[in-house]
């Protein structure tokens, strides 16, 4: 079930009503939220509901086991089994066919017969990377004694399956969410303004900006880069940068908004990422729940910056490389991750050599750094978007320096959407505050009418069909 659909609107009306009507009955309310979340997930593909249930039950058991074990060795072994199980599930569903195809290609290269057989069905459950990472954070946090193991299976089921964040994040930590389940949401303190603005802006970013850019230029150029002129290829790269931001941040905006209407809070996941003036700054602003996950559960356990400079650079590279692989079973994702890892390492080295301090940058240097960082990120997106085809990535790079011919794909619509997508990163925060204050001041009827009118506007501008969110496949 996709957010920008009538199906989801009807589903949400039922869940909203059920959630607040059952407020006085904690257990029935949690059961209701769990059933609703399973229905939401099953709407994509019923076949994977048992997987979600199995991962939840297994991690409930692992959590209890780690919490129960007193002996350090027992705790370590329990954690090892939990990590092995979760990574095994992820590897089987996400990387099995990639490994068989790669293995066969290697064999073919040596003139040997292909011996690996890929699985004969489409096996990637939607959002698997998100709920497995969430499960890993839970068992590791229990192991580190940062949170107690959940005694309530029902609480863990709500946490694991809670529909707003289930399929595309943000990766909500147990430490952030489980305590919210121990208190009853206050029916008199709903953050309506914030939720409405997040949902409406999310719908606009996804349905209008991301979808139009995808169909009008990005998909066309990335499918066959050699057929397009250099200006079109350049614009397609910028357009993809805007598309992926609008697509992914839209999902988390709507997820956060929907959760707020149900009385729950999620952490923010994006903070104007293309305003970043360094690669490190970019990762503090982009997919924050993933970058902090990678920092806390990969980079720091690897040693972080505590084991000397060289080891720090290596840790950064390894973390980002694995972060790339998390996005998908493809060498292009590995290259994308490696690029960012290398970029972070080189940047840290240069900052050390030239003793650059973030706060002391002159304004013009800051502007230059923003432009440079944006282009570095765009360069990485070429590999990211090319997905399974390294050749496409190379063709795109070649296309950037191709003939400067007429460019029929560069239309006023595409230009304005790209400009809007970049410009929104630089809006002064007071504009946003003013929008919130204005909405707050409106009487009830006007609030409803304005929100309804914006929905009509989005509906009128919607292209044919609804595309799934890009991050569903991760």
């Amino acid at each position, binding site marked *: 079930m996709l957010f920008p659909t*009538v199906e989801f609107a009807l589903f949400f009306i039922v869940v*909203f009503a059920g959630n607040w009507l059952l407020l006085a009955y904690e257990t029935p309310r949690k059961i209701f939220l769990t059933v609703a979340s399973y229905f939401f997930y099953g709407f994509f*593909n019923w076949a994977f509901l048992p997987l979600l249930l199995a991962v939840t039950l297994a991690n409930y058991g692992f959590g209890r086991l780690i919490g129960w074990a007193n002996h350090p060795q027992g705790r370590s072994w329990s954690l090892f089994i939990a990590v092995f199980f979760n990574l095994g599930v992820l590897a089987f569903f996400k990387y099995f066919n990639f490994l068989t195809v790669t293995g066969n290609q290697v064999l073919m290269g040596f003139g040997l017969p292909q011996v690996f*057989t*890929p699985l*004969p*069905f*489409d096996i990637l459950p939607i959002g698997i990377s998100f709920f497995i990472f969430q499960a890993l954070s839970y068992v590791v946090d229990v192991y580190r004694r940062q949170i107690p193991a959940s005694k309530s299976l029902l609480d863990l089921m709500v946490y694991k399956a809670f529909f707003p964040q289930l399929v595309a994040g943000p990766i909500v930590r147990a430490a952030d969410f489980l305590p919210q389940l121990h208190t009853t949401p*206050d*029916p*008199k*303190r*709903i*953050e*309506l*303004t*914030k939720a409405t*603005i*997040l949902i409406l*802006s999310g719908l606009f970013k996804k349905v209008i900006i991301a979808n139009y850019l995808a169909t009008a230029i990005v998909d*066309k150029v990335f*499918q*066959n880069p050699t*057929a397009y002129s250099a200006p079109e290829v350049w614009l397609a790269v910028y357009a993809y940068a805007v598309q992926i931001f609008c697509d992914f*941040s839209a999902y*988390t905006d709507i997820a*956060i908004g929907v959760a707020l*209407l149900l009385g729950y809070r999620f952490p*923010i*996941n994006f*903070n104007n990422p293309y305003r970043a003036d360094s690669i490190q700054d970019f990762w503090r602003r982009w997919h924050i729940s993933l970058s902090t996950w990678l920092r806390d559960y990969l980079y720091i356990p690897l040693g972080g910056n505590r084991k000397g400079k060289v080891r720090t650079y290596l840790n950064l590279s390894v973390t980002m490389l694995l972060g790339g692989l998390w996005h998908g079973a493809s060498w292009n994702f590995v290259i994308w991750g490696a690029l960012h890892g290398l970029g972070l390492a080189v940047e840290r080295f240069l900052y050390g050599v030239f003793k650059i301090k973030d706060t002391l940058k002159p304004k013009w240097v800051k502007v230059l750094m923003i432009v440079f960082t944006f282009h570095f990120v765009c360069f990485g997106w070429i590999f990211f978007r090319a*997905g*399974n085809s390294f050749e496409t990535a190379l063709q795109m790079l070649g296309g950037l320096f191709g003939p400067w011919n007429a*460019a*029929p794909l*560069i*239309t*006023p*619509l595409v230009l304005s959407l790209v400009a809007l997508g970049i410009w*929104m990163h630089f809006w002064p925060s007071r504009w*946003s*505050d003013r929008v*919130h204050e204005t909405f*707050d001041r409106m009487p*009830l009827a006007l*609030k*409803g*009418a304005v*929100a*309804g*009118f914006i929905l*009509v*506007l989005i*509906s*009128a*501008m919607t292209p*044919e*069909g*609804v595309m*799934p969110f890009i991050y569903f496949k991760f």
Partner: protein
Amino acid sequence: METDVKTKKYSVLYVTGVLLLALGTLAVLDAKGFNKWAEDIKIGKTDNKEAAAPNQGQSTEVPSGDRGIGVFYALTNPWAQASESLGLGGLHKSMKTAFRDFAGAPPVSTWFFLPDLNALGKIAQAERDIALEKQLKTPAGEVIYSKEKPLRVLMIGDSMAGLYTAQVFFSTMKNQPAIEPHLLQKVSSTLSEPKYFDWPVEIVRAFAEKTYDVVFILLGSNDAQSIRTPKGYVNFGTPEWLTEYSDRTHKFLNSILSHVKRAYWVAVPPMTPTLPGYRDRMKSLNQILDGICASHENLRFIPVADILGDKNQNYSTTLPVDGKVQVVRMTDGIHLEYWGAVLLMRRMIDNLAVDFPSAVKK
């Protein structure tokens, strides 16, 4: 738009009021869109649309085999009709038209480059030349094709004819000495939107440059979209769309068939269930194309769901090929992987073997 701004807190009743008003506004001003959504909902389907919409008189959708009306449609249809008769949908409609006009505005490059004013004249000349050449030609009899006199095969299409399909097309034909392969392919092209790539014009241009014996058409995957007509846009699924699309396709096919001995329209393969709307549209489109092709001589519609689908002719990522399970579809769930292209090419060669046995090496 994520922000930490402090805002007021509201009660559930207040929030419910705002939500109901917002959705109510949408339901009133876009009742038609809501009704259109309800058409596709499969709950409580009956076979007779008129039973629930007695005043409608005519069906408003393309027949697609699995149609009928459901509870949601029956509930929303009177609402949509009332809204329409009161003119409440006017605002939505005018906003839609204004945005479509903006979206369809000519490329920025036309601000800097002069349009090719001679293009139409050149095409008209090319058509006259071809007609003249045809008149002078003696009728083709039973021809034996060979390396010296190969069967000239042109494959045309959108991205379904590109990527691995194009690669496998040429590699397969390398083993067929009596066949000379040619390709005319444009990603994202469609008969529904000639502004981007005008197939009727381009095909005439291709025939003006070279003669071909056979054409394989791999178009359709981008066709199930709204068509711009002089009177405005017509939406996929409406009778107006069907009329316009059929008319364009017939003309396009007439143009091709006047230049070649035989043409084949290769069906769009079954699409991924993760894009259910697109999958259903492609299924409908194949039925429409099958019908259109049936009315032309020397044209065959080639179904592919039996070779590129599972045992129920539905989408499958992998399929057995020569006794081994292979990945046949790309991760987008739309395009063909290498082995999918191999299966498709075998089907195309099989058809050639029936109609031009001397050209195909067994």
